[in-house]
């Protein structure tokens, strides 16, 4: 039983980071009904920024005696700007054109963007794996006999904190309410004087900025390379389908679920079985609750 408990613990910790990425996908989807294929690329960009900040400036991803010089404080605003710009330059013209329809062409557009950015990164940074070895990278501690990896625990903490901040933002600020209103009915929100394209920029930027946080918690224990974003993105897609498209608690729940299935079954039995279990859960949920565990069925 100790082995299983250990596996569940490890799974929960990595699942939290998955959840963070899925959360970013769902913010964009929930607001503008767009599946953002460039989400993984934004994470990759965040990880490279974090890497260079550490290599060249000695900026730690998240530990500093001065709270003011950790990398997300640099990367999150940069990514927000990048996300806002992508939305403004590429996504807005399409959303304006396809006002009446579900904006499916945006999905293809972000797919194109992801192809370009990932392969440009490959051109400049090569496919070599880079690592950031900080003092916390290998640190673990024991609690109730379970080994807990410090950087992964930071990941869980980051997800919980980010979710809380987002919850407060969406529920208790005017801008947050405007984002939710636009997500529910764009036309009515416009009639209420909300600039929908600015709101979309904010949502896209916010979701990009979150990748700065995810990058910071990932970098101390994960390889950095141009394809890293895509591998996390693919996992995030599975999570989003499981948890519910557009549902923020669904993203967190789905992330933890995938982490636990992968971690627990892989350690307990073997990795191949974990994939089969994951697939079975996926298919079962698809048939029983096609909108996902916490998704809202839109017909």
């Amino acid at each position, binding site marked *: 039983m100790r082995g299983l408990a250990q596996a569940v613990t490890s799974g929960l910790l990595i699942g939290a980071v998955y959840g963070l990425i899925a959360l970013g996908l769902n913010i964009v989807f929930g607001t503008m009904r767009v599946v953002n294929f460039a989400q993984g690329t934004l994470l990759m960009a965040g990880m490279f920024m974090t890497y260079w900040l550490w290599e060249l400036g000695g900026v730690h991803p998240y530990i500093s005696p001065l709270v003011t010089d950790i990398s997300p404080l640099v990367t999150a605003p940069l990514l927000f700007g990048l996300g806002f710009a992508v939305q403004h330059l590429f996504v807005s013209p399409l959303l304006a054109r396809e006002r009446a329809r579900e904006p*499916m062409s945006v999905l293809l557009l972000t797919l194109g963007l992801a192809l370009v950015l990932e392969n440009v990164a490959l051109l400049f940074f090569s496919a070599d794996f880079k690592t950031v070895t900080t003092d916390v990278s290998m640190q673990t501690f024991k609690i109730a006999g379970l080994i807990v990896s410090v950087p992964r625990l930071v990941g869980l903490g980051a997800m919980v904190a980010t979710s809380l901040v987002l919850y407060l933002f969406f529920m208790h600020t005017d801008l947050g309410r405007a984002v939710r209103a636009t997500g529910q009915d764009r036309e009515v929100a416009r009639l209420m004087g909300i600039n929908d394209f600015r709101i979309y920029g904010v949502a896209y930027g916010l979701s990009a900025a979150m990748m700065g946080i995810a990058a910071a918690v990932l970098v101390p224990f994960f390889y950095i390379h141009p394809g890293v974003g895509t591998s996390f993105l693919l996992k995030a897609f599975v999570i989003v389908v499981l948890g519910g498209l557009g549902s923020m608690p669904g993203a967190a729940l789905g992330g933890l679920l995938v982490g636990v299935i992968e971690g627990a079954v892989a350690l307990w039995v073997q990795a191949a079985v974990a994939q089969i279990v994951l697939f079975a859960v996926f298919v079962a949920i698809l048939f029983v609750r096609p909108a996902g565990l916490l998704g809202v069925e839109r017909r």
Partner: protein
Amino acid sequence: MTRLSASVGLALLSIVGAALVPVATRALIGDDDYWLQVLIWVMFFAYLSAAWNLIGGFGGQYSIGHAGLLGIGAYTSSLLYVHAGVSPWLGMLAGGCLAAVVGGAIGYPCFRLRGAFFSLVTIAFAEMLRVGTELTDSLFGLPINGVRGFLLPVAGSRPADFQFVGKRGYYYVMLGLLVIILTVGWLVKRSRLGYYLAAIRDDEDAAAALGVHPARAKLLAMVLSSFFTAVGGTFYAQLIGFITPTRTMSLDFSVQMVVMPVLGGIGTVLGPLWGALVLVPIGEVTRALWGGSLQGVHLIIYGALLMLVILKWPQGIDPWLRGLVARRRETPVAAQPALADAPVVAARASPDGGEALLRVDGLSRSFGGAVGVRDLAFEVAPGEVVGIIGANGAGKTTVFNLITGALAADGGDVWFAGRRLGRETPDARSRLGIARTFQIVRPFIGLTALENVMVAALPRAASVAEARREAGRWLAFAGLAHRAGVIASGLSTGERKRLELARALATRPRLLLLDEVTGGVDQRSLPGLVRLMQGIRAEGLTLLVIEHNLRVVTALADRLVVLHLGEKIREGPPQAVVTDPAVVDVYVGATVARG
């Protein structure tokens, strides 16, 4: 017909030309297979893209996991060949059938939901299948070697086992497959299924309101697409002789199957071929120039082209190529037939012996806390014209949505032709004989006016040709015969309203719900539309009409139902109702009534 035979002739000429290529290269450059290999890749990707196009292009359901289906085809035939000695030709069919089942099973739950969800599910499916295969060393006791993959034994020249020495054999097989898939695409595009898919791609709700079963059409397209994709997977395995999950089920494959049809012209028959003809050589050239060190260059170009096409050129290459060959043609339609040629709209006699055709009883629906409709009851007799009036927000369109099944009622019953409607979907109700128009018109903007009406006629027509004839008659009835070949996005608002009427009539309804036909129409178009509605009325069709224009509705209706805040406040003959002080009060406003 001459245009059709010219196209067929051109196609045959291209096939013969392509078939002679290996002979020509052999004569010119000897047995160097490089150029044949490049052509095989062009045809292979054109084939895969055309298979993807069946669901992605025609139906607008973007799968980004077709590589998973490709992998199913490659693994099925290879495992059967290596472990059971089954010829890959048979294995190819087996893999195709397995993929059709899997693709259908993955698609089925998605098709009850909308767009983006299907993309997510397909990509998640392909990803899990790839990782699962990478981690699996044996399947049912058969070694598949996980991530290392396995080699197919080389048997020399054995056409019966799908093995050829040199590239020429594979070239001809691929050419044959490409001809088959393009023919399938051509046939689907012209079939009932093709029209349904095009309508669903533009507006699924409007298609369902015309009696099209959206989930069934999408499922059929997905099954076909999955089958042919897996067949391509077997070809790939035989050509390369070595399969790994990382390669056969790669995101790269899935993405290329999307990029090529989009560039070539999404939803067109030949678009996948144009896309492959442009993109595969670009990939070959960049690989030849920069080799392994800069492996991603061609993907940068693919991605940039994809963005460019979607932003600036959403129709892709195909329309431009067509423009080079011939000017856009308008679908020819028989000379404008007289009104008398139109099919009989409806019989006045009641099929159910004097009973009401529509009966609504205790119907209620609220939205969150807000009341949409509360405890509503009224009847419509066969042949009767009933108008529903009321201020904005009175619940008029909600009533329509409840009758057509676009919304589910919280309580109460809808009876139609002596039958209680329960969980019937909008398309099922349309097939029972309930048709509607939408307040904000929803034409299928990518189809011509004639094709728009054909979609409505098809669920009841015996053939596509019959639906075309019938659609022509309904267009003439609606006064749009001269606009039959115009793409719907080019029609004016007044014309779109007429188109929507023609579409609703072509479903051969027993009850037609008209939602604000005169709304948003300029004064000049108004009299024509009113005459058209009176023409429909004169044919004896039972109508339920929402109308803001009191003059129009009092002239048209036998009886009016007045709604206020979701409840019926008056019902009776038009003149009596519109002069009733209570009605004037809620409808025109209290100050006017008292002043």
